[in-house]
């Protein structure tokens, strides 16, 4: 490089300029690294959270047409990368006779000894069952029934009654990942024999390694299966499952994308200022015979070198900054510390990012530098900056907006995956920023009216300074617009989503007390012995004085139109608000339809299966298929919305879902606390878990706040980075104006006046940027909600939140004012002659 020496000399003579530019790159890269790392930790945390809720990560092999299938039809899949264990399962509704009691239960057939040996099943006491007359019981159920290791029970099978010995007790929760509500384990060979289904299974559950990629494993297994078998992700049984986590992941992608955009603006602005300061030098070089290509290469080389330097510093700073954030996220999501481990490729990728962002951001300044007027270098004064707005800019705004809206429309219509909303949203953000040169002058002029009279001179000069450099001012404002819109957009999206989830939960779980079983589910098929009888817990509770109402909710897994889902059967009170939020249907219509024996479907299930209100779908529960008419769609987060809900009596008739898994107890007015003792006694006696609504809400809040906390943490990081970017940009801008400030001092302005003028200029800029950012932020919020609509299956309305807006605007103005005040103080302290002589 022929001008390499000149570059080094420029750095040596004006190190501040090079350092400020490299610092911008470091801030930008640091932001991206910190966001990457934090987002990656959040995603890992989400997966862990899903594991906590759903059990260990698994993939199921099931029959494509539903029902049982021959286990030998499943090819060898244990060697698929990421697979830890392959577990054939068969479920069998049964009845246990314990002394005088008969208890409906689901028995699961599994190789218990194998699972214990590889640590996938923990026993509290005893040994795994192996023989035909041996069973394991969930420890909670065993305690409730007063049973222990060595005791015997009568096991009712198809046309047989077997005397079974309890060989061990399973630790509560240990069998959740395969139990599907069962609390009794029988060796799979014994159960298939008892069920006269030798060699058959309901599903083969594939357990993944902790670092296994579920989608990749599902795909790899699917490729090996014969035509009549399929691999699928099991339906979640918890309230906040995969699709909700997908929505949170989409939020993280959005934050990461916006951070990259912000990084680009920070670096682009720094590069433009860096190059603008040297236009006269470039002009002189051109005059002496340098080609436009020489100048472009010079600027690009400098950008590349500063990009690498800034990238290295930024990678280290970003990693360090991510430390406390990831620790906070890990705490919020209750994921282990190892979750914060950083992929080794991130650091070199960050350095490469610094290089690429710097070179890309220098493209336009380099092009402009190459096109510099040859006479600029010898002119007595620099030429005035261009005024007016070019048609190219207006075209760019129109094109970007059209592309963004088209992308979004295609996402909503399902032609594009939801993730495509991220580039669409960023495109829209760019369009907003591109409108800055159009919007900034009138906004600044309007804001100038609010400058108090005692700052009139400073205000007039400040407005003049802003309007003089439209391109650079627009870029500085661009950083502000991204930072503010990031905060406002995501702030609204997060709050709206949380309110949506909590609103749903409040409707669903309207009760004072909640009783649930550790093993959750009891379901009994029609071919069960008819002499069975319920434990009668519900009747006991209804009989308690002070109980106003008891609602039962039964939950089981099944398949609708070939898609795994959760079947919910619940009592619907005849009066009071419907505990559901119908879409495009009234509460009365839904209530009547449910009473007729129809069902309502969660929006995500509808999206997955393509079912519409009025459709009749085939519902498969425990190997039995029943046609059900879907009356309406409802907002539901049970299993992420992949759910089908019927009235409890309908669930009993159609699916044999007899008992409730959850009992919602509403106390009579003022009787809430008086119910604690009797309910506690029943819970202890029956092996149930009793929680007040507040306690249940706390659990839900912890999960929700864990997700939200991680988003807030990353959003906060984005704001800090935006602030640093704005501070750096404003600092460079003020230092660049040293000569102007010196001239103003020379013609009689006091140091205080000049300082106030600079600060006022930045405040006006911040206010104008915030005004544009407010618009962009609200549009972003709508964009994010529209993007998550295909995932959630229902729209989440955007509510204007003054507190979110005010926090962002005030923070932006304070940060910008401070960022201007410090360098302005330094600039006005310079000797006037020294300042004037600054080129």
């Amino acid at each position, binding site marked *: 490089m*022929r*001008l390499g*020496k*000149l570059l080094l*000399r*420029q750095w*040596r*003579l*004006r190190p501040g300029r090079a350092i400020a530019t490299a610092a911008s790159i470091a801030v930008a890269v640091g932001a991206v690294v910190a966001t990457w790392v934090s987002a990656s930790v959040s995603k890992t945390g989400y997966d862990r959270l899903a594991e906590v809720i759903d059990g260990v990560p698994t993939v199921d092999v099931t029959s494509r047409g539903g029902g049982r299938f021959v286990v030998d039809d499943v090819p060898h899949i244990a060697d698929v990368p990421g697979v830890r264990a392959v577990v054939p399962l068969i479920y069998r509704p049964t009845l246990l006779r314990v002394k005088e009691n008969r208890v409906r239960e689901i028995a699961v057939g599994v190789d218990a000894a194998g699972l214990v040996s590889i640590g996938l099943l923990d026993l509290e006491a005893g040994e795994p069952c192996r023989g035909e007359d041996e069973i394991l019981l969930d420890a909670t159920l065993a305690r409730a029934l007063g049973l222990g290791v060595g005791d015997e029970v009568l096991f009712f099978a198809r046309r047989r009654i077997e005397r079974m010995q309890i060989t061990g007790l399973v630790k509560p929760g240990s069998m959740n990942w395969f139990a599907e509500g069962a609390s009794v384990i029988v060796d799979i060979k014994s159960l298939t024999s008892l069920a006269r289904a030798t060699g058959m299974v309901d599903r083969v559950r594939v357990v993944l390694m902790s670092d296994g990629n579920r989608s990749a494993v599902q795909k790899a297994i699917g490729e090996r299966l014969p035509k009549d078998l399929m691999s699928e992700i099991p339906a979640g049984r918890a309230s906040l499952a995969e699709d909700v986590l997908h929505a949170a992941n989409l939020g993280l992608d959005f934050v990461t994308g916006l951070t990259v955009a912000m990084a680009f603006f920070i670096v682009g602005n720094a590069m433009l200022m860096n190059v603008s300061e040297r236009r006269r*030098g470039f002009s*002189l*070089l*051109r*005059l*002496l*015979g*340098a*080609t*436009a*290509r*020489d100048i472009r290469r010079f600027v690009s080389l400098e950008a590349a070198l500063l990009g690498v330097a800034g990238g290295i510093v930024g990678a280290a700073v970003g990693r360090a900054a991510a430390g406390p954030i990831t620790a906070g996220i890990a705490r919020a999501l209750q994921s282990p510390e190892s979750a914060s481990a950083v992929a080794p490729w991130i650091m070199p990728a960050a350095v490469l990012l610094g290089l690429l962002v710097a070179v890309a951001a220098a493209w336009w300044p380099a092009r402009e530098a190459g096109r510099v007027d*040859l*006479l600029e*270098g*010898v002119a*007595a004064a620099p*030429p*005035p900056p*261009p*005024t007016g707005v070019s048609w190219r800019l207006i075209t760019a705004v129109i094109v970007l907006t059209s592309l963004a809206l088209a992308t979004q429309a295609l996402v909503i219509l399902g032609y594009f995956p939801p993730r495509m909303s991220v580039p669409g949203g960023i495109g829209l953000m760019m369009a907003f920023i591109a409108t800055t040169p159009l919007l900034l002058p009138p906004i600044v002029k309007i804001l100038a009216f609010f400058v108090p009279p005692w700052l009139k001179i400073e205000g007039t000069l400040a407005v003049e300074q802003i309007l003089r450099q439209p391109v650079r001012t627009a870029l500085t404002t661009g950083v502000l617009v991204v930072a503010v819109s990031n905060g406002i957009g995501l702030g609204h999206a997060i709050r709206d989503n949380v309110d949506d989830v909590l609103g749903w939960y409040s409707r669903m779980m309207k009760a004072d007390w909640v009783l649930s079983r550790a093993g959750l589910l009891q379901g009994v098929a029609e071919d069960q012995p008819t002499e069975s009888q319920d434990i009668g817990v519900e009747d006991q509770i209804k009989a308690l004085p002070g109980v106003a109402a008891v609602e039962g909710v039964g939950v089981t897994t099944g398949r609708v139109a070939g898609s795994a889902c959760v079947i919910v059967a619940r009592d619907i009170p005849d009066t009071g608000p419907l505990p559901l939020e119908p879409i495009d249907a009234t509460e009365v219509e839904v209530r009547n339809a449910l009473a007729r024996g129809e069902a309502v479907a969660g929006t995500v299930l509808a999206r997955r299966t393509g079912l519409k209100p009025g459709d009749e779908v085939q519902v498969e529960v425990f190997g039995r298929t029943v046609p059900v008419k879907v009356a309406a769609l409802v907002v539901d987060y049970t299993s992420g919305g992949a759910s089908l809900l019927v009235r409890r009596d309908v669930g009993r008739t159609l699916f044999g879902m007899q008992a409730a898994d959850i009992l919602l107890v509403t106390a009579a007015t003022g009787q809430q606390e008086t119910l604690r003792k009797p309910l506690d006694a029943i819970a202890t006696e029956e092996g149930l878990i009793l929680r007040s609504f507040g306690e249940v809400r706390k659990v839900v809040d912890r999960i929700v706040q864990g997700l939200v906390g991680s988003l807030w943490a990353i959003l906060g990081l984005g704001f800090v980075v935006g602030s640093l970017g704005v501070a750096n940009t404003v600092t460079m801008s003020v230092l660049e104006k040293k000569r102007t400030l010196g001239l103003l001092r020379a013609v009689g302005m006091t140091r205080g006046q000049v300082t106030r003028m600079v600060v006022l200029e930045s405040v006006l800029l911040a206010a104008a940027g915030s005004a544009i950012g407010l618009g962009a932020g609200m549009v972003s919020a709508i964009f994010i909600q529209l993007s998550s609509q295909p995932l959630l299956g229902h729209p989440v309305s955007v509510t204007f939140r003054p507190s979110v807006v005010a926090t962002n605007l005030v923070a932006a103005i304070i940060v910008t004012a401070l960022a201007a005040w410090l360098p302005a103080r330094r600039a006005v302290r310079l000797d006037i002659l020294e300042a004037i002589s600054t*080129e």
Partner: protein
Amino acid sequence: MPIIRAEKLKKTFTSAAGATVMAVRGVDLDVEPGEFVAITGASGSGKSTLLHLLGGITLPTDGSVWLEGTNLATLNDDALAAIRRRRIGFVFQRYNLLPELSLIENVALPLVLDGAPANRSTQAAHEALVAVGMDHRAGHRPDALSGGEQQRGAVARALVTNPAIVLADEPTGALDSANSAVVLDLFRQVVTERRQTLILITHDPGVAASAGRIVRMKDGRIAEIVAGDASLAPPGAHRP
């Protein structure tokens, strides 16, 4: 054959306010090799614009400039840059040395830009500095030099590639009389010893009088061309 020929040269500018200014309004001028032409005229008469057009710094709105038989308008940006590097030396009123580089590095810059090896460009720059009597200040940066010293450095930079033409825009305009005399003596060497063509803009009647021809500009046109005393012209050089 003239080394530079201007034919019906016109140049129009549009100001930031949108007003159109015709700086040069149809100029025809031939300059022979080795000739010293002085351009004079009031401020705004178009003399600097004419010089910039002749040097290929800016292209005409109409008409053409022929340099050594080549129409500058037919050249692309790279070819024009090569001509500025090799065939033309520029000297301006405000010296225009790059503040980051030492004096010798500034002088060597046109050769560096032309891809000359470092030792050859440094050697040539040193010789040019010796020629202008500034070799003792070779390692100093411009901010450590006086105005006269900087302008002598600028002259050395213009001469370092041994160009065919030297274009100077009021080179003594910012100098005191003593420094002006030194710089003018350097231009005398350009014309009399190096036999290079010199086109120089000046407000100083004495300096103009020493040229072979004096071109007086008024309102963008050549008002008159008169003969100077050619006191700086080399023996046998073209005379009007």
